[in-house]
């Protein structure tokens, strides 16, 4: 290969990459216009930062019990009060943040890694494969809401890892369906026909030309799925099927507080409030992303 050819190739690459860089900038520009989405985005960043740094900064131990300090209301010493075992609720919430975010991200990434290829294969190849896959997806979708996750956890047994797996499986059908839809649309684009006519192989068409076209709905849905994954995982822990004591998982903490609603309502209040904050942040961000990525909104 001569030098000139290499330079030419490099040029070509840059030409291909430039629009991408532009579209990321363009995307951020559009996101910036949506103030709510930006607030959601920054809240998520702050939450992630707190989940990493926070545990080093708290002055109490999340799991050390103190019988004399049980059921304390919020105070300067215990910002969110103490629970039925005298543990500092604020410290436990900060330590639990990485669990909540971790389960949310991990389950959605796992669900997407399985769901996306299924959706692309189904949409791209069509015919009998598509039919079979979609009927299987229909069956999974026949278990509404938290039910599928409950069924899976009942087989695997209750633990945080199993909850993550259960929530991931629960996310697969949604991803597969969305990707299938956008693959069907992308497949019909003229330039895909042109590339096929030039003799490109299926793998190349899928990775280089279909994938970039179907990823934006994936990102929007992944964001919104994290919100529902957090809710589902907390729900399973609330039922006693997720995190086992003394793990400071928020759903499990809510479950602890449930028995003391008459005397110490704050035990259940604060973990729930933080679940709301996390879910709200992802929902707002997801809504904003959808608007920012929607071509109809482009101006």
């Amino acid at each position: 290969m001569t030098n000139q050819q290499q330079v030419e190739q490099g040029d070509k690459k840059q030409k291909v990459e430039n629009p991408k860089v532009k579209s990321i900038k363009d995307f951020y520009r559009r996101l910036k216009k949506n103030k709510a989405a930006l607030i959601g985005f920054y809240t998520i960043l702050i939450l992630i930062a707190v989940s990493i740094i926070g545990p080093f900064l708290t002055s109490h131990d999340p799991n050390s019990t103190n019988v004399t300090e049980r059921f304390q209301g919020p105070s300067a010493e215990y910002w969110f009060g103490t629970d039925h075992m005298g543990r500092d609720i604020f410290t436990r919430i900060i330590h639990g943040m990485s669990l909540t975010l971790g389960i949310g991200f991990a389950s959605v990434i796992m669900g997407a890694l399985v769901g996306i290829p299924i959706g692309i294969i189904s949409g791209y190849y069509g015919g009998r494969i598509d039919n079979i896959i979609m009927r299987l997806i229909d069956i999974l979708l026949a278990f509404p809401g938290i039910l599928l996750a409950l069924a899976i956890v009942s087989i695997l047994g209750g633990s945080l890892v199993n909850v993550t797996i259960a929530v991931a499986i629960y996310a697969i059908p949604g991803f597969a369906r969305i990707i299938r839809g956008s693959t069907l649309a992308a497949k019909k684009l003229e330039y895909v026909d042109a590339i096929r006519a030039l003799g490109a192989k299926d793998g190349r068409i899928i990775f280089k030309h279909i994938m970039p076209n179907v990823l934006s709905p994936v990102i929007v849905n992944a964001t919104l799925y994290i919100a529902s994954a957090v809710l589902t995982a907390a729900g399973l822990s609330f039922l006693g099927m997720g995190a086992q004591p003394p793990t400071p998982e928020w759903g499990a903490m809510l479950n602890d507080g449930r028995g003391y609603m008459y005397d110490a309502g704050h035990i259940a209040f604060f973990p729930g409030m933080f679940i709301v904050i996390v879910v709200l942040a992802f929902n707002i961000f997801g809504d904003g992303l959808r608007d920012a990525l929607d071509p109809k909104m482009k101006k």
Partner: protein
Amino acid sequence: MTVYIIRRLIQLIPVLLGVTILVFLLMHLTPGNPAQLMAGENAPPETVERIEDRLGLNDPLPVQYFDYITGVVQGDLGTSMRYNTPVIDEVGDRFWVTMELAIYATLLSIFLGLIAGIISAVRQYSVSDVTIMIIALFGLSMPNFWLGLMLMQWFAINLGWFPPTGWGSPSQVLLPVITLGTAGAAIIARMTRSSMLEVISQDYIRTARAKGVKERIVVYKHALKNALIPVVTVVGLQFGSLLAGAVLTEEVFAINGMGRLLVDSIMNRDFPVVQACILIISVVFVVVNLLVDISYRFLNKRIDLNE
């Protein structure tokens, strides 16, 4: 129309078969021998074997599935391992409690969601629109079990207006129904708003306004009718999530419904009951969605039924 309904019913069969296969496999994928579980840990091997024979656990899987499905079709959902009673008796009335809860919550979410969505759309970008959409976003983001506990704390414990637990009297019904219905109301409100906005910008609405039709009639007669079409689908899907969400609501308010039975049975590894609860909820969900699809076709005359 009849042809369409019949075809949809036929399409239902593979889904229902798939659901029963999955639910059936549930029990067989579970680690541990059910016969051993039933007989107790220290039971002699002969007893375990006898129970295995009685349950048909030594037959090949397809035969076992066939036996299971024949039973299910005849209303025999197996025997509870814990109480040694027919599962159908265990489920019995609890099924109707959960259905009641889910139906009331659905009605509430349709009522609140439609009103909020229409107001939001008609007064787009007004203070009421923004307020409604913020409330809806919160409603969507709250775990219903937390909302339930908080409602219980304020209205039942602090104010003493309602009994904190139980099911049956109207005062007992209100808090759980609000708990369960809030998320649904939020979703329906958002859906109604965006659907209304889409319809309102269409030409025929402008024509109606131009020829001097009163705004109220334009909104409720011309726009709402078409805007409702996508909302109907959401309502169907919502009913399913509400059935499943009832599990958490029933736990919070100590309501003796199927959801609570399901959770207790998972805890006690009473798999026939777990199987039955999951199967029943899924079948109800699938059937409700079929009904919704059919009504959707009624509402939307533009869809060709023979397609």
